[in-house]
């Protein structure tokens, strides 16, 4: 095969907020492949594009400010660039803030000469009063520079041309860029000759590695030690100490400052500012959001409205409760029936009826008909019925994220979160948790502090997710008659759960990490802009697909298992659910429910349902429905448990707080990388659920006695 036909691999690097996801989406159209970078939880996205007959594979690097080794994202980025796999590194530079964003481009150019620079947000330069001499920048850096606007779609063809030209060696530099490190230069030469003598880090540019080692790069030191160059590491460390002692200067500070000096001198020549950068327009929304008094309530209001709208669209809640309360009972029922979940529910029962008829006519074996009708369809239906909810929630979140409102909300709630040992950034994972706990646990990565990250991993699973909302709604509508009682029950459970989430986070920080101060907040605040539809859809689909895949497989498998456990017993096929394996398992844990005053026949059913809830919360209601047979409605099945409203409420508190689902436990494990901590977290949640729900139950009993 000729060289031209080979696939070109392009690594895409850039600071956060330079418009990387927008450009990536528009360049590639869709994500071809999502996986984690080997050995990390950092996500790796790939996209394909064909241009001038060449196949180009874009690999999205995590958004970082530098390629030092201060975070897993930075290590991923630089090791991939150095791996030799990418033919070209595309570095994104924000044309409205070149003085800051060129820094990363210079860093990458020090590591590899195969670079193309995209000056993003070309459409915004005019309004920000900036003009950039592209040809001068090309001349200074020695690599192609292309002005692009993802919003208007300009410059994309030129960018792809440049990528191919650099990949095939027609354009660009032959050697990495040299930054002048003045007094450090002799020492750099010394380390370079040491590295060259031992041929210790052949994959990295030698000068780049020398500078990094002088800065005390722990990752490179570790690689050297693993390759048996322990003495070399010691020698470099000695040199470093000697430099610090003789010059009295901080090497890292000198390196970063020298690089920024180069950036400044380049910027001075290529950037023409018509307006001063210190007088940008601030919209009213921007001003209000960061206002010390109006900001926090406005931020929370935006979030609350998005979620209420999403809830109402999907389940009818809380619109149905409000309508019912106002006396419009019929309207409330219509809202419920025509909510997305209601419609999908009806569709599935219709499908179920038709399939049952068809399968019976076609003389399918009874067990197969039962498996499909009683097992798989209710299972798949329960997942799909709240899939739209997840999608709508994620659309709202993606808009907040892509528009720049998100960071402002994080700033406005920072002080409140500090009381619970978190920074304002923790609002993201906690809010996502209201949708689903799995991405909430994964969103802990946004934290720059390891302790805060752990706090989020272990406390976010207490936030009530959509699956719990469905259970809460089912039970409250069955056991509480007045809409006001229902609403109070629902809201109070959310309040209890969210307070316990925040308290748990604080306890982890105080007792486990022994830290009294809240985590530091460092967060870039991009200008508010109209979110790109493509990016919103891309983010939404990315989140939702994950949910559909993971939860889908688990719940389908679980509904088959439930069906089997309830249809078979030690004697084979059972006609009475009382003789099934499910009953045996349920009875073994049923005695615990006497603590809540639940005993006899209903205890094992409740216990078995709660056990199913360990795997997935939405299976809880469904299990109860299956146990009482298909003849009666879910509401009647729930009422058949014969609980008092207080017992139902205490069980709901328990259900909300104990381990959310298997998928979340798996997420906790993958993010914390500790089996021990995952087990501890699970036990903690069960204990928290037991203690809290018992307190609620006995407090309730006490109040009942006092009142009567």
């Amino acid at each position: 095969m000729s060289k031209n036909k080979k696939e070109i691999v392009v690594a895409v690097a850039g600071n956060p907020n330079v418009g990387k996801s927008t450009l990536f989406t528009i360049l590639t159209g869709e994500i071809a492949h999502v996986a984690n970078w080997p050995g990390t939880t950092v996500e790796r996205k790939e996209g394909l594009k064909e241009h001038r007959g060449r196949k180009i594979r874009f690999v999205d690097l995590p958004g970082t400010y530098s390629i030092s080794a201060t975070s897993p994202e930075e290590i991923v980025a630089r090791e991939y660039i150095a791996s030799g796999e990418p033919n070209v590194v595309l570095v994104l530079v924000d044309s409205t803030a070149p003085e800051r964003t060129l820094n990363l481009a210079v860093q990458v150019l020090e590591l590899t000469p195969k670079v193309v620079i995209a000056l993003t947000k070309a459409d915004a330069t005019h309004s920000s009063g900036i003009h950039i001499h592209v040809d001068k920048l090309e001349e200074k850096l020695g690599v192609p520079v292309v002005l692009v606007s993802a919003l208007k779609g300009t410059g994309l063809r030129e960018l792809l041309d440049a990528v191919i030209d650099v990949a095939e060696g027609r354009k660009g530099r032959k050697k990495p860029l040299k930054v002048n490190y003045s007094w450090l230069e002799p020492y750099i030469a010394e380390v370079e000759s040491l590295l060259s003598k031992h041929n210790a880090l052949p994959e990295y540019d030698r000068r780049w590695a020398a500078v990094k080692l002088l800065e005390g790069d722990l990752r490179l030191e570790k690689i050297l030690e693993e390759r048996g160059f322990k003495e070399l590491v010691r020698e470099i460390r000695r040199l470093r100490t000697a430099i610090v002692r003789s010059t009295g200067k901080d090497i890292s500070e000198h390196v970063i400052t020298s690089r920024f000096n180069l950036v400044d001198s380049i910027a001075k020549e290529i950037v023409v500012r018509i307006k001063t950068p210190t007088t940008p327009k601030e919209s009213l929304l921007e001003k209000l959001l960061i206002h010390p008094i109006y900001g926090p309530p406005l931020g929370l209001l935006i979030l609350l409205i998005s979620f209420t709208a999403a809830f109402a669209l999907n389940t009818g809640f809380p619109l149905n409760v409000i309508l019912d309360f106002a006396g419009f009972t019929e309207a409330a029922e219509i809202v419920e029936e025509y909510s997305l979940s209601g419609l999908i529910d009806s569709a599935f029962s219709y499908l179920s009826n038709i399939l049952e008829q068809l399968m019976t006519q076609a003389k399918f074996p009874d067990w197969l008909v039962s498996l499909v009708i009683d097992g798989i369809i209710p299972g798949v239906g329960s997942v799909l019925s709240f899939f739209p909810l997840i999608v709508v929630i994620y659309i709202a979140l993606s808009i907040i994220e892509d528009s720049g409102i998100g960071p402002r909300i994080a700033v406005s709630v920072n002080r409140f979160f500090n009381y619970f040992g978190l920074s304002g950034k923790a609002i993201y994972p906690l809010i996502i948790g209201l949708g689903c706990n799995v991405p909430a646990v994964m969103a802990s990565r946004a934290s720059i502090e390891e302790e805060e990250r752990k706090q989020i991993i272990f406390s976010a699973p207490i936030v009530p997710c959509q699956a719990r909302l469905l259970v809460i709604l089912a039970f409250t509508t069955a056991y509480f008659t007045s809409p006001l009682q229902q609403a109070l029950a629902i809201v109070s459970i959310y309040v209890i759960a969210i307070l316990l989430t925040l308290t748990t986070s604080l306890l982890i920080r105080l007792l486990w990490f022994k830290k009294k101060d809240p985590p530091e907040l460092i967060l870039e605040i991009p200008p508010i802009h109209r979110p790109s539809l493509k990016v919103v859809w891309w983010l939404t689909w990315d989140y939702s697909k994950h949910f559909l895949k993971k939860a889908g497989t688990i719940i389908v498998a679980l509904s088959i298992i439930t069906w089997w456990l309830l249809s078979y017993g030690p004697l084979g096929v059972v006609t009475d659910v009382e003789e099934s394996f499910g009953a045996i398992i349920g009875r073994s844990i049923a005695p615990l429910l006497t603590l809540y005053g639940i005993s006899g026949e209903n205890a094992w059913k409740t216990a078995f349902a709660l056990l199913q809830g360990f795997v997935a919360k939405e299976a809880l209601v469904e299990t109860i429905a299956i146990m009482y047979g298909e003849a009666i409605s879910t509401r009647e099945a729930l009422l058949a448990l014969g609980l008092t409203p207080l017992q139902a409420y205490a069980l709901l508190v328990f259900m909300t707080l104990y381990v959310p689902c298997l998928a979340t436990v798996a997420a906790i494990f993958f993010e914390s990388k500790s089996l021990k901590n995952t087990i501890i977290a699970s036990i903690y949640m069960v204990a928290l659920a037991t203690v809290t729900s018992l307190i609620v139950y006995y407090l309730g009993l006490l109040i009942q006695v006092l009142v009567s």
Partner: protein
Amino acid sequence: MVSLENLPPGTRARVVGIVGGYGLSRRLMEMGFTPGTEVEVVNSGPGPLLVRVRGVVVALGRGVARKIIVQPVG
């Protein structure tokens, strides 16, 4: 020389240095807070400070802002 935390909104100052741990100093410097750089306090209330540095607005918790030593300009 004062800490960035104590500057009222609208003030401009030059970064003198950062008194913090290795990770924090590095992170701030890579975001543009290098000695000699001019910064401007955009907003300062009871919560985090908003600071413009190199054409970008960055929110800094008060604890972080306290560690940035600056020399007011003009």
